[in-house]
């Protein structure tokens, strides 16, 4: 195994992404947003940076882009607010940090990284996370910053009803949003990061899989780094991210076999839709999804690819 091998994969959500509903212009906007995030993360790795820094950097770019359901483009909850979740994990130490239901942070992933670095805890939520963040002077944004027109329109459609939807909803089917990145650095360390605005019109303090270590996000140098996107409740019940690692560690499956078993079989059997991006300690990358499309990209020394459809 060459120690110098490195690489990164990112996603910007999976779900009902149909060519028929996509204009050439829109598609180009998604592609270039993915490329920007991918190249930013890759540049960190190419300079010898850590996988943790690379996944944070890539996710920041995705959070700053209004197209994805994380950071700036986060969906509206039932109260018309933006409540965001994020998590990050270091595959070398198995240290992790996560935040749930936080508001007004420009980059929730950076806050999660601070929890990883400076807290004895793994998961902080809401006001408490805000309190924790005080000493770090993180970038805050007003509610207007998060007001993105197409998100507002999505919310207006179902506001006041009991329904809620994940991003990319198609009539009765509920879908996803969420962004994530996984990376392997030159030192052979893996890391995973995930960030989301959750579900449009969500109520009752709903928390999905994204801020939950082992469920929506996981990294372990022994096996792989994984970031999930999809119907969060099913991913939680399937403990999907850690299960991929378990299939590799305990059953001896390859990354691709494990990721496919988890997404194309186990998640489907549960009735869940979605996908994952995963990278192993040898730099292999797998990006299976069991729905129409997943905004995704991967880059290593040999390849650079951005794709949307299946």
């Amino acid at each position, binding site marked *: 195994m060459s120690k110098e091998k490195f690489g990164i994969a990112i996603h910007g959500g999976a779900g009902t992404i149909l060519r028929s509903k996509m204009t050439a212009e829109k598609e180009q906007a998604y592609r270039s947003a993915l490329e920007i995030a991918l190249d930013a993360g890759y540049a960190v790795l190419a300079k010898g940076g850590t996988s943790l820094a690379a996944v944070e950097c890539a996710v920041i770019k995705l959070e700053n882009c209004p197209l994805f359901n994380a950071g700036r483009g986060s969906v509206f909850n039932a109260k018309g607010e933006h409540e965001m979740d994020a998590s990050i*994990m270091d595959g070398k130490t*198995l*240290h*992790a940090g996560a935040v*749930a*239901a936080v508001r007004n942070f420009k980059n929730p992933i950076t806050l999660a990284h601070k929890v990883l670095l400076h*807290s*004895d*805890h*793994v*998961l*902080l*939520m*809401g*006001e*408490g*996370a805000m*309190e*924790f963040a005080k000493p770090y002077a993180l970038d805050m944004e007003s509610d207007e910053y998060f007001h993105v027109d197409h998100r507002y329109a999505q919310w207006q459609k179902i506001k006041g009803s009991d329904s*809620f939807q994940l991003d990319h909803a198609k009539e009765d089917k509920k879908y996803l949003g969420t962004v994530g990145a996984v990376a392997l650095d030159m030192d052979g360390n893996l890391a995973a990061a995930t960030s989301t605005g959750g579900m449009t019109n969500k*109520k*009752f*303090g*709903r*928390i*999905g899989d994204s801020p*939950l*270590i*082992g*469920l929506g996000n*996981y990294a372990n140098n022994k096996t792989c780094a994984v970031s999930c996107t999809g119907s*969060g*409740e099913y991913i*939680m*019940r*399937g*403990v999907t991210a*850690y*299960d991929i690692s*378990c*299939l590799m560690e*305990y*059953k001896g499956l390859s990354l691709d076999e494990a990721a496919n078993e988890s997404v194309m079989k186990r998640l489907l059997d*549960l009735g869940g839709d979605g996908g994952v991006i995963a990278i192993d300690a040898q730099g292999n990358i797998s990006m299976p999804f069991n729905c129409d499309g997943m905004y995704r990209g991967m880059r290593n020394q040999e390849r650079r690819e951005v794709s949307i459809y299946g």
Partner: protein
Amino acid sequence: MELRNLLLICFLITVLSSCSSQKTLQPTLVKSETSSVNKQKTKVDRPMYAMVIHAGAGTILKENITEEEEYYYKRALYAALQSGEVILENGGTALNAVEITIKYLEDIPLFNAGKGAVFTNAGINELDASIMDGNTLNAGAVGGVTNIKNPISAAIEVMKNSNHVMLVGKGAEEFAAKQGLELVEPDYFKTDARWESLQNAKAKEKDTGAILEDNPDWKFGTVGCVALDQFGNIVAGTSTGGMTNKRYNRIGDSPIIGAGTYANNETCGVSCTGHGEYFIRYTVAHDVSAIMEYTGASLEEASQQVVMEKLVKAKGSGGLVALDKDGNISMTFNTPGMYRGYVKPGERFVAIYKEESPE
């Protein structure tokens, strides 16, 4: 002394409840009717039911507990087991048994869940709970709730009557109210012993951060229960008040599916207690199940591997209770003690310290 009074009340409740349901301890074995779907599986004799509980692990040392206290703790554990056993031996479901048992542990002030939960740094009780059904892999959880009398029941409502798995804070409280669950004033949860613990912790605390080391008595309270019913279904549940003096709306492993709680009829059900952050990072509950499923290890081997090897190596202290589809039970912990017990037809066991083991 406050604690004494509380213990006395518990004792009375226990005596009353045991008088009302006298029963014989007849060993019962049923042939497991593995469903036709799994017809290749060999039939095994499994007990009609089995249930295992914990009420926290930590620095629980004989020298720090009076004989009287020990007696009351054990009586409470017996009473909790009995409350669930009544359901199981009368053909009830594992879900019902787990709810009733955990409610009992939440309602008495001895343990760090429901009434008797520890205080946060802000002087309030923030409660977490979760439940998982091993038959359907359905799950429910609540985090950071302050006015729901029985958080385990709220977790069950989330599982049964919402499209979500996990609700937190005010939103979870709103949902519980809508479902008609009993709400209480926040001071319902207050006990003098826990309030004192917070004051001690604060006094000893230098500046920021957790103060786990300073607080050996109430290190990890958490209660949990795993049950196997006559239908072969496994359900696991966990409920906790978290860590004394916790800050920043910290959420531990107890409300996280796969970390503090997991159940799967194909393998096992698990409820954890301990230093929650390690249990999250090591996805402990699911790990036990995965080791069984993917390596063919027994329940005991899998539990030992996770708690005594992985967690010890990572310096994560705590333990878990688990049972598998054949009714085998594991109560594994790497701390000096864990309040624990199990019941099967004709068998009962409760213990506190490490050196106690079933005869």
